[in-house]
């Protein structure tokens, strides 16, 4: 069988899944929340009267401007995306175990590694759709809000940074895939993603952030200190190694581990 056959079946599974469209609906709430924050910051009196998030918005150091809006957008894609992407990977790989179909998939005239690769391609495609959708939605909302400080260069830079953060998040996805296959379900990868993000946050406050894969996105988008415009070569190497290790581990796990599910 060709890889194209495997890929087409994976796209069919994704297209007919409610979770796929749910993830789109979920992430599209992000820019709406950003719009609410901007409105609260711009009109704190009315927001306070309505009992909305005035205090929290003040503490966040936000201002109702394009630079501030774009910074939140990058954070949404970068950090929120890490978690959402882990959820998508856990679903795409974990459903085969949760629905009992893994055993049907592993005794076919198709190399088991192709399932891993096809699923990672499907995840990449879907992730790209989500990121582009959320960026377009955010920019349209930003325009509609009429925020001050707009410039094409600023938007292009923020969009570039968000896409880079999304790309880095994807490089970490195969490790989550491996944990999913290893744990044969949804919970282990989600627990792993949450723990990694928490650990990444800890590392962000140390001098080791550039060496820890889950700190590199926060470093890039400036969650602590100023955003890093160019990632150090060491970080790129760590990300490449993490990706390669994740793909290799996932393939080895699916090829050689007992399937007793």
């Amino acid at each position, binding site marked *: *069988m060709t890889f194209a*056959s*495997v890929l*087409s*079946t994976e796209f*069919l*599974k994704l297209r*007919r*899944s*409610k979770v796929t469209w749910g993830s789109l609906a979920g992430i599209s709430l992000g820019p709406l929340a950003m719009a609410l924050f901007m409105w609260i910051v711009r009109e704190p009196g009315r927001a306070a009267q309505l009992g909305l998030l005035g205090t929290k918005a003040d503490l966040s150091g936000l201002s109702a401007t394009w630079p501030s809006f774009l910074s939140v957008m990058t954070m949404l894609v970068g950090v929120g995306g890490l978690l959402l992407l882990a959820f998508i990977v856990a679903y795409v790989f974990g*459903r085969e175990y949760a*629905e*009992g*179909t893994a*055993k*049907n*998939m*592993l*005794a*076919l*005239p*198709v*190399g*088991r590694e192709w399932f891993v690769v096809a699923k990672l391609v499907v995840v990449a495609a879907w992730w790209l759709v989500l990121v582009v959708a959320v960026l377009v939605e955010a920019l349209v909302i930003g325009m509609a809000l009429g925020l001050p400080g707009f410039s094409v260069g600023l938007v292009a830079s923020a969009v570039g940074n968000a896409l880079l953060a999304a790309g880095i998040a994807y490089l970490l996805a195969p490790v989550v895939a491996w944990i999913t296959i290893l744990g044969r379900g949804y919970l282990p990868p989600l627990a792993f993603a949450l723990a990694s993000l928490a650990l990444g946050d800890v590392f962000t406050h140390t001098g080791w952030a550039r060496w820890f894969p889950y700190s590199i996105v926060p470093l890039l988008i400036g969650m602590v200190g100023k955003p890093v415009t160019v990632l150090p070569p060491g970080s790129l190497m760590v990300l490449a190694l993490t990706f390669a290790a994740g793909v290799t581990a996932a393939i080895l796990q*699916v*090829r*050689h581990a*007992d*399937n*007793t599910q």
Partner: protein
Amino acid sequence: MTAAPDMTVISTRALTKRYHDVLAVDGLALDVRRGEIYGFLGRNGAGKTTTIRMLLGLIRPTGGEVSVLGRRIVPGETGVFGRIGFLVESAAAYPNLTVRENLEIQRRLTGAPGAAVAQAIGTLRLDEYADRLAGKLSLGNKQRLSLARAILHKPDVLMLDEPANALDPAGIVEIRDLLRTLADEQGVTVFMSSHILGEVAHLADRIGIINDGRLLEELDREELQAKARAYVEVRVSGDPARAESLLRDAGFAHIERDPDDPAALRVPESADRAAEIARVLVGAGLELTGLTPTHEDLETYFLRLTGGVG
């Protein structure tokens, strides 16, 4: 590719699987011939599913080896899987895909022609449900979907784990007929596991009985029927030991005592000699309170063999 008529299609040698302290399959040696329906009979937890998983390369044996269609099965290799159809343990399908879409996935992954989906739907009588989501099927129809998936690419070998699960009596007969037709008319080799003796006894050409991971006995259908033994149950008031002694002296060599019922004796292979037994005991002055010629059914035999009640 068609195998030679006398070819051994499934072969295991000293096949063993150990999970920590549990020996799930213990030195299994099987040979299943082309076009044969082999019933793999055992109680729950006997090692049937573990064996099927090893035959399919889903789990790695701790020892021994498996070959199917002349190729050694190694987990992770594609080998002969284009010629094998299977159903392992429970019926599983993608719940948010229709019956047709689930089968379309199988078709694409096995390289079967486009018409194969409609044929499989027709064969398993799923036409009415073809565009229904698999998640909304009854258990019986899910089982039919799994069987349709197994036969869709016209495999040479079918490995079916409890194929009659969840089917109603009419469905069981239908599947039995389908498997018989596939074996007789297309030379398909069927290896099916079951814990239901009646199902296997009706269909299988040869039967392997497994218990605690070990193959206890291998026999054909006629041999299995013959194993259902006949005996006479004798009850006397007074001294059963004396009755036993008298019967032995009269030439009844094998007499069994029932540990749960001290007054009862069993005289195997003697259902047609009940009158003679009565004459011996009454003639010696014993009071006979019961004399029952009994034919043990297959299930009792199976339970006795596998250490259950019976």
